[in-house]
């Protein structure tokens, strides 16, 4: 809010920019260890089968092959942090059997002197499969009693929540509308393909794993649990990461654990890197949703009831699923003040590659349904969609019914006003141009997305601040930076709190041996959760500095402060000493002290504040081809406080563009279990030429629990893009597209059956 900050709120350049711009940054794929072997996976060609017999004898005799590990030795890791929470859960986390459940499910891994030999060895292996009947459609899978993907049935999780009295809500409504929405399996499509690691299992029992994981500390626990090692023996080192977006939020199916087993067997480091094709075919994607909404509202535009039913396609193994459906619940119930809501969700197994965490975590899917539905409600009432939102959104001071917590900051109204102004909402005559071949339209959507995962998952953050003898500062944090720039943000927070130049602070690499417990980079949480820990640690260090300074300057501690690296008496600024001078004295010169100032903080953030936002889109639809061109996007987000505005703009542009892909082109096409578009020619992500002008609007509502008022941003930026675009398409041509992606063909079909009123 106030701008008395020295570095918070400034767009300082990223601390890793130099490494990245000179090509010095090393990603997992760039790393080599002495004596390293290369591994490849043999993957199932069938969507569902039992491995009856494996003959590896020929491969074993290949001179370059050093180890083979099979499905019978290497467990699959499922359940992730839901299971992490309890001892019993941890045991259930490691699934072991000889069944493959999707095309691409690993059967075994081979480690050899080089990749070509590993590949060659794979072709020498004989597998006898007993094919089992597969099921691909989640709705069928739910009903099917004969095909069991997992022993306990095909429904991984069912949730039913009721708020108020849904029937009463419908009775109070003047109108009730019902719609069904379908979303696609989007891939993270990080430019560094998902899936690269090196495991180095020393015979002494120490295991080092280089991995681009978003969750270094949880990965350490998973691996330690799976291998029966004390956590302290497992070290996760995270090099630079070429984008993550949730795709690296846990262990990668068939990757780290396989490499650990192979390395243990071979007694040498083992590296495995998936190809782009393997990434597309066999790593996690965004859960496809089928959402049925029944919404009641009055003629004044007040929502009275909402019934939400979701069937979510988990894929072959459940990794992230409860959290994903919980995020859909959170947004479906939390965003609008609807007194009577019924939410029912099914997470269902299918014989397709698994689905997991992906920017927004269940929210983009729900948002597409909900915000399309809101547009339909507004249409029915002849009301401006913004007005409908303003009448119904839940604002600051109200209680979020899902978390049962008071909302402390909400800048949604400002997002709506400022975003509308930017796109000149009022000036764009809606629906007026529904003539001619090329038609223009505008649309909008709203969103909320909680920061972090405090209400449901273990969500720790920690930081250590060390002040060195020359006044420079070492910040130790396990906060993984996948490219967002959160490490730079954390440096700014530490610098602001300490009163020093941000350039004097250096951040540790992300290494579990040298950094304290952190819940990982997910849930848009690092600026908030990590930031709170860093600020606390810095405050503690500062306090210790002032204790010494008070003695040294012979002035009461409460009169002292630090600014630009100088400790001074606020009442008599001429009484001062530089941080460097004081540190040298207490660390080195004073032989009776020899102390380093250490500030440390650990724990969970006090809240899980929602970030709010509004998306606006202007599109052009060619009624002859069905082609959509996005002409303009505006994203307005309430981030609490922008620690680094340039980073936030970067998140907004990146998120909006990912949202364009989700809206118009992206979705894996899976036929009989086989992915048909496992390359960038067939799976189209937006290119520089497809991108319209994008305006970022930053709203600062000041979150009282956040570091300097900040809350999260990363995920929010793509959550409502698809809904805004779909609503704009409707505005342009009058067809309601209820299935993602909204391809050219789908629009053409819809236009052909459309009879304008």
């Amino acid at each position, binding site marked *: 809010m106030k701008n008395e900050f020295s570095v918070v709120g400034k767009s300082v350049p990223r601390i890793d920019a130099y490494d990245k*711009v000179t090509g010095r940054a090393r990603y997992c*794929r760039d790393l080599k260890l002495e004596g390293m072997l290369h591994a490849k996976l043999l993957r199932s060609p069938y969507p569902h089968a039992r491995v009856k017999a494996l003959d590896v004898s020929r491969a074993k005799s290949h001179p370059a092959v050093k180890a083979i590990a099979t499905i019978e030795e290497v467990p699959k890791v499922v359940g992730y942090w839901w299971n992490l929470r309890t001892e019993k859960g941890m045991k259930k986390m490691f699934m072991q059997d000889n069944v493959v459940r999707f095309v691409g499910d690993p059967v075994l891994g081979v480690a050899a002197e080089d990749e070509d030999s590993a590949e060659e060895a794979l072709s020498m292996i004989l597998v006898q499969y007993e094919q089992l009947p597969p099921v691909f459609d989640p709705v069928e899978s739910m009903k099917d009693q004969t095909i069991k993907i997992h022993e306990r049935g095909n429904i991984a999780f069912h949730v039913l929540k009721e708020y108020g009295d849904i029937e009463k809500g419908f009775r109070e409504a003047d109108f009730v509308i019902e719609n069904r929405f379908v979303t696609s399996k989007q891939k993270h499509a*990080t430019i560094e393909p998902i899936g690269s690691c090196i495991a180095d299992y020393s015979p002494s029992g120490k295991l080092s794993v280089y991995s681009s994981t978003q969750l270094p500390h949880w990965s350490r626990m998973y691996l330690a649990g799976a291998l029966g090692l004390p956590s302290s023996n497992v070290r996760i080192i995270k090099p630079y990461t070429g984008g993550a977006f949730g795709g690296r939020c846990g262990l990668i199916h068939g990757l780290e654990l396989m490499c650990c087993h192979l390395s243990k067997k071979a007694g040498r480091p083992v590296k495995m890197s998936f190809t782009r094709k393997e990434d597309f075919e066999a790593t996690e994607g965004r859960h496809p949703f089928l959402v049925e909404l029944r919404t009641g509202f009055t003629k004044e535009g007040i929502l009275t009831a909402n019934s939400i039913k979701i069937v979510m396609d988990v894929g072959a193994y459940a990794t992230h699923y409860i959290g994903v459906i919980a995020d859909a619940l959170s947004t479906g119930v939390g965003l609008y003040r609807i007194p009577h809501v019924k939410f029912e969700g099914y997470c269902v197994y299918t014989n397709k590659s698994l689905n997991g965490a992906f920017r927004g975590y269940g929210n983009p899917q729900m948002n597409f349904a909900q915000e399309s539905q809101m547009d339909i409600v507004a249409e029915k009432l002849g009301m401006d969609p913004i007005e409908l939102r303003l009448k119904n959104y839940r604002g600051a001071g109200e209680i979020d019914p899902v978390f049962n917590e008071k909302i402390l900051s909400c800048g949604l109204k400002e997002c709506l006003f400022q975003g509308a102004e930017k796109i000149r909402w009022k000036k764009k005559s809606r629906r007026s141009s529904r003539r001619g071949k090329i038609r223009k339209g505008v649309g909008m959507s709203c969103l909320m997305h909680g920061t972090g995962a405090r209400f449901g998952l273990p969500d720790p953050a920690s930081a250590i601040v060390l002040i060195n003898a020359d006044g420079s500062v070492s910040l130790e944090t396990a906060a993984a930076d996948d*490219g967002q720039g959160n490490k730079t943000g954390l440096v700014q927070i530490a610098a602001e709190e300490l009163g020093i130049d941000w350039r004097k602070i250096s951040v540790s690499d992300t290494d579990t041996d040298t950094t304290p417990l952190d819940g990982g980079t997910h849930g848009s949480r690092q600026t908030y959760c990590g930031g709170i820990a860093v600020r606390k640690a810095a405050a503690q260090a500062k306090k210790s500095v002032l204790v010494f300074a008070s003695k040294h300057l012979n002035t009461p501690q409460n009169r002292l402060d630090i600014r630009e690296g100088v400790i001074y008496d606020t009442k008599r600024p001429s009484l001062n000493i530089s941080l460097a001078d004081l540190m040298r004295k207490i660390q080195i010169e004073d032989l009776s002290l020899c102390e380093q100032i250490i500030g440390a903080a650990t724990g969970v953030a006090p809240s899980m504040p929602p970030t709010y936002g509004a998306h606006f889109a202007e599109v052009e639809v060619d009624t002859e081809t069905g082609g959509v061109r996005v002409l303009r996007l505006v994203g307005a987000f309430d981030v609490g406080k922008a620690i680094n505005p340039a980073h936030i703009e*970067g998140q907004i*542009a990146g998120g*909006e563009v990912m949202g364009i892909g989700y809206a118009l082109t992206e979705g894996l096409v899976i036929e009989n279990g086989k992915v048909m578009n496992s390359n960038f*020619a067939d799976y189209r992500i937006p290119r520089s030429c497809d*991108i319209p002008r994008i305006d970022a609007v930053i709203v600062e509502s000041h979150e009282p629990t956040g570091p300097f008022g900040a809350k999260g941003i990363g995920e929010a930026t793509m959550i409502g893009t698809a809904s805004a675009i779909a609503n704009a398409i409707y505005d342009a041509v009058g067809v309601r597209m209820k299935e993602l992606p909204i391809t050219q063909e789908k629009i053409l079909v819809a236009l052909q059956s459309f009879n304008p009123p």
Partner: protein
Amino acid sequence: MARVNIKIKVNGKLQELGVEAHETLLDTLRERLGLLAAKYGCGDGECGACTVLVEGNATLSCLTLAAHVDGKDIETIEGLEQGSHLHPLQESFVEQGAIQCGYCTPGMIMSAKALLDKDADPSEEKVRRAISNNLCRCTGYEKPVKAILEAARRMRGEK
């Protein structure tokens, strides 16, 4: 397997190498010369992460056989810095915040360099086209496009 002897100039330095007949330039740079800035993103010519300059032209090194560039001049991002001075493109990528994960950055900057070396004052449209083969999943292309236009201004000596 057939081996081929080639002479190439990489970032101004002559390299005499024996390469496999089917070896890609990307592998030669990464595995033989330890130049790791050009990245593997797809191996299919569809992402641009492996872009380097061959005789000044932006080239997908994953689709180019090393044997085919015999006698040619290759530039990678490792060769852009002059002493301790960043190239204007590098400078403006840093300043404009055009980098996030950075995985696409070396390829994108090389595509941009190929453009600016030929056209000192390109339109935004041209810039967008020049990097249209460089996929970026993080930045939304907004800041990279701005950074390239800014670098062009600088290289023309404006401000």
